[in-house]
């Protein structure tokens, strides 16, 4: 396959700020005790894609990520780690590594995607239509905590900001309209010209762009070169390509076209044959002159690959998402975790020690070398490695990372406790994030406080 894969692993995302730090960049946040980046890399490996470029923002983060990758995937994957400055945006990151890209098409995946959608399916859809861009879209994740209808769930419904409005043709193959970010707050404007060309457009507000794109490399680079203001693939490059698909500006002006024609002389012919074989898409019909003569207009195709509803596909881009993903990966989407679940539908590492009358419910995970005292109860939670947990502790719907010490009689609900934290006795936490680095807590806290 003439595909290059770029994984955008980000840096220390501001949105996840209490959880990430210089030592733990976003890509290494644990999901069921594995860095989130490993989920993407393993999906790629499953699709037999072994050459990749991982782009990390910031030198410190790059060191951490690079170190982890070389240790974990030493003879399995051939990974190049590229460092780009912070805050260049996704488009900026691709611009920075442009000289590495040589293949005909480029698959760009966000490093925070936890999904079981095969990347191969996206690349195949891309190739089938000879598209300039193919975006993977998936259903908007079902909001918040499934059972504990706490404030978390309400927040999610209140904040519709993070999904898209997506317009597709009736066959659900072509992307005709996409609105992101601030545009969602406004009335949707659909261009009549494209509607005229296609006849019917299905508009969906319940789908979202999963940030996995296949790009035609030369088109991508041309757009990045010409539009130097473009910062984000999702908010700038993709909408631009979708907008201009019936009046394509790419491959027309200047050198790239000449090159293209020479380079792809053979491709063009085979493409013609392919195009003749299948029924023409509306792009081709639109491109034709008034009496079916040779194409007079330039068009390009923007395609979508819709992940089926049974697939899991969530991005780890907020604290809520972090909690949700951790819950799902050991819960309903447990095939993703790669662990073998016990008969009780949980994972307890053999080296973990449990005190008497301590129960670990289903959909839980207890990491290597962790110890729990007597009469504890753990429900729907992930507990990391080498944690020391006292007696009479309740952990519900929470994520406890590695090397955490929890005193007796604590109650932890819906919270994230980062590595190396220490909780004194009888601390009650509800919907909190506790920062790492040996913070000692001896207070009772509730709802959305950081420490």
């Amino acid at each position, binding site marked *: 396959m003439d595909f290059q894969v770029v994984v955008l692993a980000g840096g220390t995302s501001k949105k996840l700020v209490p959880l990430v730090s210089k030592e733990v960049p976003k890509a290494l946040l644990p999901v069921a005790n594995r860095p989130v980046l490993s989920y993407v890399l393993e999906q790629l490996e499953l699709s037999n894609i072994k050459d990749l470029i991982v782009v990390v923002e910031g030198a410190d983060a790059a060191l951490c990520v690079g170190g982890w990758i070389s240790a974990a995937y030493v003879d399995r994957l051939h990974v190049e780690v590229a460092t780009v400055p912070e805050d260049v945006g996704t488009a900026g990151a691709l611009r920075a590594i442009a000289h590495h890209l040589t293949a005909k098409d480029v698959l760009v995946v966000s490093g925070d995607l936890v999904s079981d959608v095969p990347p191969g399916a996206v690349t195949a859809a891309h190739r089938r239509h000879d598209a300039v861009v193919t975006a993977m879209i998936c259903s908007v994740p079902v909001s918040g905590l499934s059972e504990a209808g706490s404030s978390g769930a309400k927040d999610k419904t209140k904040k*519709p900001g993070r999904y898209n*409005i997506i*317009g597709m043709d*009736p066959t659900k193959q072509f992307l005709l309209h996409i609105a992101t*970010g*601030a*545009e*969602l*707050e*406004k*009335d*949707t*404007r*659909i*261009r*009549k*010209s494209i*509607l*005229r*060309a*296609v*006849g*019917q*457009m*299905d*508009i*969906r*507000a*319940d789908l979202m762009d999963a940030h996995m794109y296949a790009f035609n490399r030369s088109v991508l680079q041309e757009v990045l070169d010409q*539009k130097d*203001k*473009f*910062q*984000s693939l999702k*908010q*700038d490059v993709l*909408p*631009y390509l979708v*907008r*201009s698909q*019936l*009046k394509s*500006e790419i491959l027309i002006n200047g050198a790239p076209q000449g090159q293209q024609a020479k380079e792809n002389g053979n491709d063009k012919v085979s493409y013609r044959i392919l195009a003749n074989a299948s029924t023409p898409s509306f792009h081709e019909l*639109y491109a034709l*002159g*008034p*009496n079916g003569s040779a194409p*007079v*207009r330039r068009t390009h195709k923007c395609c979508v690959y819709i992940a089926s509803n049974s697939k899991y596909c969530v991005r780890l881009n907020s604290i809520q998402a972090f909690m949700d993903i951790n819950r799902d990966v050991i819960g309903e989407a447990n095939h993703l975790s790669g662990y073998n679940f016990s008969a009780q539908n949980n994972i307890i590492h053999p080296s973990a020690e449990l005190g008497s009358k301590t129960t670990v419910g289903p959909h839980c995970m207890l990491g290597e070398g962790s110890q729990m005292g007597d009469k504890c109860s753990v429900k729907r939670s992930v507990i990391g490695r080498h944690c020391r947990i006292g007696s009479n502790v309740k952990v519900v719907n929470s994520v406890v990372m590695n090397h955490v010490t929890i005193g007796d009689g604590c109650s932890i609900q819906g919270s994230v406790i980062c590595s190396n934290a220490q909780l004194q006795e009888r601390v009650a936490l509800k919907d909190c994030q506790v920062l790492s680095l040996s913070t000692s807590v001896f207070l009772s806290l509730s709802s959305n406080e950081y420490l």
Partner: protein
Amino acid sequence: MGAQKKRAAAAAAAARVSEDPDDLARQPLQAILLADSFTTKFRPITLERPKVLLPLVNVPMINYTLAWLEAAGVAEVFVFCCAHSKQVIDYLENSEWFSQPNFTVKTIESHNIISAGDALRLIYEQNVIHGDFVLISGDTVSNMSLTQALQEHKERKKKDNNAVMTMIIKKSKPSPITRQSRLGTDELFMAIDPNTKQLLYYEDKADHSKGTICLDKMLLAENPSISLHNDKQDCYIDICSPEVLSLFTDNFDYQHLRRHFVKGLLLDDIMGYKIFTHEIHSSYAARIDNYRSYDIVSKDIIQRWTYPYVPDVKFCGNRATKLERRGMYRALEIEQSRSAQVGSFTVIGYGTKIGSNSKISDSVIGEGCTIGSNVLIEGSYIWDNVIIEDGCELRHVIVCDGVIMKAGAVLKPGVVLSFKVVIGERFVVPAYSKVSLLQQPTVHDSDEELEYADNSSGTVEFSSIQGTADQSNGEMTSESSEAHKPKLGTGGVGYIWSICEGGQEEEWRHSVAPIPEDKLTELSEAMDDDQELVTQDRTALSTSGELISDSNASEGDDNEDSKDDSVYFEKEVEATFLRAVEENVKVDHVILEVNSLRLSYNMTSADCAGAVFYSMMKLAIKTPHSSASELQQNTANIITTWQKLLKSYLLEIDEEIEIILKFEEMCLESAKEFSPLFARILHILYDKDILQEDAILRWADEKEGADESDKVFVRQSEKFIQWLREASEEED
């Protein structure tokens, strides 16, 4: 409480529903047939004969509609007649429609009705509709089965009392180049919920200048999935609940069924009435809206899409016709010369004679026509008793009853000859002209919005015209025939209607003639330009710095709006103030007026303070003065007189600072004369207790870090500020 009531109402509704099936079984299906389209698209023909009686493949249109209604199971039809009502009623009385078993046709007549809305209001007053009814106009051809649509409508109605109407739609993609459907109607944009089939958006009469469709954000918030359609055609067959009639009565401004009623319901979310759609796939439904649809529907009938309503099947009012090879229909007693060639998809009516070497193809010839030799007829509609002499050429034209074409006359594509026109020898009628014995009404306005008004004048005019028409029916009045002889060649009778301005280039859109090639190229080029403009706009915007042009553009608009608002507000306040000064209005009243302005423009009291102060200073500068000191004196006077007004807006320090800033701005821009006086006037304001020392000091502090150019006035009042500071320190 409210919920309980609702539940009770729901229960009552449910109880009613449970009885419903029996009721419905007993309730015969009714229909309202509007025998008037309330438009002028078929003029000049419709000046003499109502549209529903125009022959469509040799059968008056209304027969297709009535035959379909009967077949679809409608028991009672109310035919609403307006223009030429007498002709319609006479026709129906003499037809077999009044003597059908299980199918009653009743006519309702009115003369002062100018729109479909008025017609429905009148029918509501008559109280004849008791249940669901089919609303249709008398120019619709269909063979669809109503059963399923009706069933769906009733089921929806049971579940949701607000589902008042089901619209029938059919797939038909308009040409992207001409932006009109094959029936010649404008392109239609609809948004439909793909699951419930509810209609969410309807836009016909598209505004071509707008390149986008704007869907309200609420719409998407409520419906996660919407299908936008540009590939559907409205069949103008509606299944309505009785509420529709009362809705027309409640909203007396609803005139047009689509433009007012449908859009009104879609926009009005208070009542929550809903419209649904039903798409038909294999059956036929089309409304004849203009000459192009007349042409297309005729062809569809000949090609048997409308079966069983085709010429060789007897349905009502058509004579026995035989179908021959290649879609040729021939009635009885045709005299055709051996050398005449009648081509495919042609209908020849009863008793028509065709001379030698004439060629006819893709045309409909009525009854009793006489066609000479060497005549060429292509894609044309010749009605009854037309005489075409030797060597005439007709391409894509409509020729009404009793027309005489003298030898060698030529009709260019798109010509319409109304009743009994005579075309002189070898005369060439230019393309798209309309010829009638009647003169063009002087108030002819093609503007759709004025159509109603126009139409009313049309009907009035009509009665007066009827007389002349009758006269001309017998024999042409000598003056008219003579005056216009030269226009239609020797022996020609009739007037060529001038195509009204603006309509000229649009004429080809709705004509019977196919759209000429060059027009298409021209249009597709125009389309490219359009596109270019759109993308240019966008790239211009996106390169000029920001990323998503659309949102930014509208944001810019918003900003401008609010800017405009504040400018208007300032002007209003100034006007109010000046009036108050002139008329010696009491201060309290002025405060009231300014307060009401503040509310209507949604401004803060700081804005008011700024605006009032601005007006006062403006007044001071306008009062005649010879020197700076005089100006200062004027200002002091005005401030003294109106200090109460100004003080009523100075609730907090912020507003006082606003005044200083405003003053500064004035000194720099609009009223430079004040700039040397800045410090002194500041002092006056302080003396009058309008500004407190805190405000002045804070203003001075704020300016501390500003640019040098901004500090001019702080410098100027340095001494004063100094003095203030010292004073406050002393107090401490």
